[in-house]
């Protein structure tokens, strides 16, 4: 299909696959709404399907029927390779120039000289912790990887969580990169067999500590409320919601650094509503969305001006808190492939998938 060369009349709707919390119309909290104004201005009704993992997003896009997806780096290349998404004509997006330069040609959406989407939002996978169990912020991811006695005198066993997605192997690799330099890991997404095995071993040890893996942001919130969880890799989103509910939690990026995500709004190759899609992409960059969403989700806008120009609630300090300046510390999610840059032969993603199921199953 040819790229669009001009934007026509809106089709009346646009169907988006998004991470939970990414597209809010004021239903959860009336203050956070970046949909209504778009619908009023363009007449394009926004239909959202939330997906909890990157795999789910890929599956939904493969199934079809959607126009846009807020894909993380571990999904975007797969969809490009699978020809599920189409290149976008950035000349049709007037605000493109305002995008963070660090993201304009990021490898997870800029392939073969083509832009496959507009950057949406990025952020770290933070370490969330209960401030009662940790009167002082933990400095290392070790609290979720290794058995430790916490400040309240009890072991962390059974009181920590980990993400229920294969990409969590990268978190383990990231931890090893810092603590076992002899393995020679250069990127947590490019692991040779030996490095990979070491990461899995670390995760098998973690299995003993984790009573339930988190899969769904809201279930993790429940678990921190009702199950006595004290530490877990998490998203700023959950941290914010829990804080709002009065639960004593806080978050930190520990010394090892963190993995993170940088999401891109990508357009389905068979999109039935391309005009509305382009309008939405422009909206994501130009409206209050970048600013308010970065507050709501605790993430960083792809448009640096959104931190300061007062189009939404975000402020310069807020952006700093969210890690706007930590870009370099964050290892952004990408899909592990077998032919990798750093060491030629790496363990590919499909092995990550089945092995991580094995780890959770206790193998």
């Amino acid at each position, binding site marked *: 299909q040819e790229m669009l060369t001009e934007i026509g009349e809106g089709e009346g709707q646009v169907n988006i696959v998004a991470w939970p919390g990414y597209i809010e119309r004021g*239903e959860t909290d009336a203050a956070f709404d970046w949909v209504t104004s778009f619908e009023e201005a363009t007449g394009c009704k926004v239909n959202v399907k939330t997906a909890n993992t990157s795999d789910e997003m890929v599956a939904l896009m493969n199934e079809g029927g959607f126009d846009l997806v807020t894909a993380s780096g571990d999904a975007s290349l797969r969809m490009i390779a699978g020809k599920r998404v189409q290149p976008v004509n950035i000349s049709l997006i007037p605000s493109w120039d305002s995008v963070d330069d660090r993201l304009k040609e990021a490898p997870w959406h800029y392939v073969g000289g083509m832009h496959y989407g507009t950057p949406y939002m990025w952020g770290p996978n933070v370490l969330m912790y209960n401030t009662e169990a940790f009167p002082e912020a933990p400095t290392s991811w070790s609290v979720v990887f290794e058995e430790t006695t916490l400040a309240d005198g009890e072991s962390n066993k059974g009181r920590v969580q980990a993400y229920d997605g294969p990409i969590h192997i990268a978190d383990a690799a990231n931890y090893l990169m810092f603590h076992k330099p002899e393995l020679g890991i250069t990127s947590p997404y490019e692991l040779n067999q030996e490095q990979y095995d070491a990461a899995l071993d670390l995760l098998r040890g973690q299995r003993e500590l984790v009573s339930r893996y988190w899969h769904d942001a809201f279930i993790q919130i429940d678990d921190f409320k009702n199950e006595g969880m004290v530490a877990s890799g998490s998203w700023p989103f959950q941290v914010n919601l829990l804080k709002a509910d009065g639960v004593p939690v806080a978050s930190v990026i520990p010394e090892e650094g963190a993995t993170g995500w940088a999401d891109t709004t990508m357009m389905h190759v068979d999109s039935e509503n391309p005009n509305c899609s382009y309008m939405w992409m422009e909206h994501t960059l130009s409206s209050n969305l970048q600013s308010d969403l970065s507050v709501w989700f605790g993430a960083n806008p792809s448009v640096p001006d959104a931190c300061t120009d007062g189009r939404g609630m975000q402020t310069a300090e807020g952006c700093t808190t969210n890690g706007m300046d930590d870009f370099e510390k964050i290892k952004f999610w990408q899909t592990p492939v077998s032919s990798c840059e750093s060491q030629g032969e790496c363990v590919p993603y499909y092995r990550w998938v089945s092995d991580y199921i094995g780890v959770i199953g206790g193998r």
Partner: protein
Amino acid sequence: MHSDRAPLALKIAAAAGLAFMHLPILLIFVYAFTTEDKSYQWPPPGFTTKWIGVTWERPDVWEALVLSLKVAAISTAIALVLGTLCAAAVSRTRFFGREVVSLLVILPIALPGIITGISLRSAFHLADIPFSFWTIVLGHATFCVVVVYNNAVARFRRTSGSLIEASMDLGADGFQTFRYVILPNIATALLAGGMLAFALSFDEVIVTTFTAGQQQTLPIWMLEELVRPRERPVTNVVAMMVALVTLLPILGAYYLTRGTDTVAGQGK
């Protein structure tokens, strides 16, 4: 008949079993009135009836409810027709495939719902059928057939074949016999089967997840709500209302099928 009383151990076991089956349900009722809407604090800090009002005001509840009712009604109607036909065929004759037919009817409920769901979903996908009201109905009717079938087949078995012969003997042709003898005799069984089918469809979530696309039936709404709560007690209010409302068809089904052995099977 048997006059001795139940042994104490049995009474205790039965009572404990029943309690086990009901306490969690009562809990829902309690939580429907709690003043605490964020966590599951126990015992609840206070009680209020405001959630009933809040529920009443929520349009998404109503939309889901209406969709569920429509789906259940139509699936039940289809299941009634198919189940009765099947039961009639199976009970009337001893043709070679009757075993196969009963197996076929039982299969959608004997195989895990997720399999039915995935099969239908991938079949819709292959056949390029977009999700709609009818795709939900298709899935529901498939597993509702068995409930109607079981009720109808039991009644057919008890309704002695000589009634039909008696009717024909007295001058009624096949259609008249159906109208005046068969239908009145199986009506209560069909009603009971229909009610159970309705309740089954109304509460179904697993198959529906796969055949609903973006539509929300009440159970799907609940799944979303329970996982991503906006106002937790609203979910409990809805659950309580649904439990109270399903009580009626269940009672109805019980009174309709009770003691029918003596009426329909006289002389045998």
